[in-house]
């Protein structure tokens, strides 16, 4: 294991901002794994730290390929982790909206540029990222449809789902998108948990990466099971919205199989407590996402369903 400093930004009074990478195996730039870009991505930071520990163990035992290389970057934004701010604290910009960066630009553009120059020539890029909606969701690998994507390789993670996303304008400045544009096969790994560490879910993400590395022959361990991933397009998800605002109760969980018309939740009057709305499933399928904020606005997406008329045959 080799710890290298990838970037440094000096500060007026704080210790300088340093981005560290941990290198394993050979000198080829094969796989780069990135954790927290936002200051609240503690789960993502934790997953990287565990991978550093495990790969160090494997390297000491001679079970890592000596030509191809792996680099793990636990965080590119330690400043925001330390101040517990989601974005860059001084101007509230998101470094994951600044790629590929600009060396003569504003502070977060410079950080993105300084970092990206060190990682834009890997064959594979993996980013542990947090979900854009507050709530709970099913673990998945997400790939942007840039025209350069490789869906089949994503199966090597063995995660339950591979989600294909048509990039929106604001996606084009993310690490994932820019990686693909520069010729890196990029995958974003989503596991539930952001501000809090959920060990069981973190293990799903860690094991998925180990499976991928083993399938690629970068680490020499026997592969454990994993899922036969199902590929879905993001626009196939059926969104369930509230009609009323109030206190939300959902009686479904991610992965649950539901039938069309089934009551999956209710909204109570905030002050008077009685039910003002029953939330019904518009189709049969499996719950992919559900919100978790108990005070809900009207017309808010609270559940997303993977449509599947045959879900009911599978027992849970």
């Amino acid at each position, binding site marked *: 294991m080799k710890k290298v400093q990838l970037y440094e930004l000096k*500060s*007026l*009074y704080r210790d300088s901002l340093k981005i560290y990478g941990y290198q394993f195996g050979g000198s080829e730039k094969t796989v780069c794994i990135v954790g927290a870009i936002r200051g609240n991505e503690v789960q993502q930071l934790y997953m990287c730290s565990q991978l550093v520990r495990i790969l160090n163990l494997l390297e000491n035992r001679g079970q890592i390929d000596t030509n191809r290389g792996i680099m793990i970057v636990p965080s590119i934004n330690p400043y925001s982790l330390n101040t517990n701010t989601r974005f860059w604290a001084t101007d509230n910009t998101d470094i994951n909206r600044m790629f590929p960066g600009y060396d*003569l630009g504003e*502070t*977060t553009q410079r950080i993105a540029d300084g970092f990206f120059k060190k990682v834009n020539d890997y064959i594979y890029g993996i980013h542990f990222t947090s979900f854009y909606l507050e709530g709970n969701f099913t673990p998945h690998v997400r790939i942007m449809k840039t025209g350069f994507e490789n869906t089949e390789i994503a199966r090597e993670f063995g995660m339950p789902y591979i989600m294909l996303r048509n990039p929106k304008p604001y996606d084009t400045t993310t690490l994932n998108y820019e990686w693909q544009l520069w010729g890196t096969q990029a995958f974003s790994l989503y596991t539930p948990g952001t501000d809090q560490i959920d060990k069981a879910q973190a293990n799903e993400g860690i094991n998925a990466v180990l499976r991928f590395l083993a399938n690629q022959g970068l680490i020499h361990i026997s592969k454990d099971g994993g899922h036969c991933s199902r590929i879905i397009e993001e626009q196939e998800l059926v969104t369930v919205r509230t009609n009323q605002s109030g206190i939300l109760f959902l009686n479904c969980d991610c992965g649950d199989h539901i039938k069309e018309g089934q009551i999956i939740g209710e909204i109570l009057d905030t002050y008077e407590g009685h039910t003002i709305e029953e939330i019904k499933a518009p189709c049969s399928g499996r719950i992919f996402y559900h919100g978790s904020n108990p*005070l809900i606005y009207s*017309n808010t*997406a609270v559940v997303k369903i993977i449509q599947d008329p045959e879900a009911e045959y599978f027992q849970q």
Partner: protein
Amino acid sequence: MIQTVAAAPLPAAENYIVKKQRLQPENLLGNEKRISIVTGIHGDELEGQYVCYEIQQRINEHPELLTGIVDIYPALNPLGIDSITRGIPHFDLDMNRIFPGNSEGSMAEYIASKIINDVQGSDLCVDIHASNIFLREIPQVRINEMCADTLVPFAKRLNIDYIWVHGTATVLEATFAHSLNSIGTPVLVVEMGVGMRVTREYCKELVDGIFVEMKDLGIWQGSIIEPKKPIISTDGEVHYLNAGYAGVFIPTVEHWTSVKKGDKIGEIIDPLEGIIKEEIFSDCDGILFTLREYPVVSEGSLLGRILERNEVIA
């Protein structure tokens, strides 16, 4: 008369309400022109607040001179203004990225669609923004080059100092202004002053210009000023000054002054070591139209923008 443009229930005993003031002549003929003054999309930009007030003060002094409709929307994002938040609190999103909205969408999208429906059809709309807390801007209109033919003539009447015509690369499709401009309602986006503050002098100049527009549209019959002749630019002529070091920025020139290549703009000092870390010089002849207001800077922080040109301003 004060009207409700949009309302949506929040979970706990409150509605999200967008209100407007409508001023109009006592007897309507039915063919009156309409100008809409919009501000407060960003909750921490307050320069437009005084503009909304001042327009009404002037009209109310001589209501008999009003021959058209003036709609004033001082707060499109009332929760943001109340909580000193740029975006819509809770939604964690910039309200100026959700237009034209969706009447079937989330609350924010629903509100946005009601606002668009209400403003649509105005003969002119002025959307007033301020800068952020970091930078001070001279009163300027920012125009997408795709709309330049339609909007530059309007902007020239608005009594502002500077018209910044942006390249299409910076198009932001989901903005309030772009959504309306693309359906034929002309919107001028004004940026001026500094965030979280009111610069009365700039506000009064802008109100003078709004009355010029109103006279031109036949909405106002009173006397007006001769509008300033603005400087018009394209993206290519704007030079950016960024900090090379972290420190405290102390400007050594006034905002909105002519500078020559090599002129000193300011310095970045280090209070711990008691030294100058960096001196900032202009790399062209031109006019300093943006100047950093907030002293603490990181490496890369924007310190100023200079419009390159050879003539000097008075």
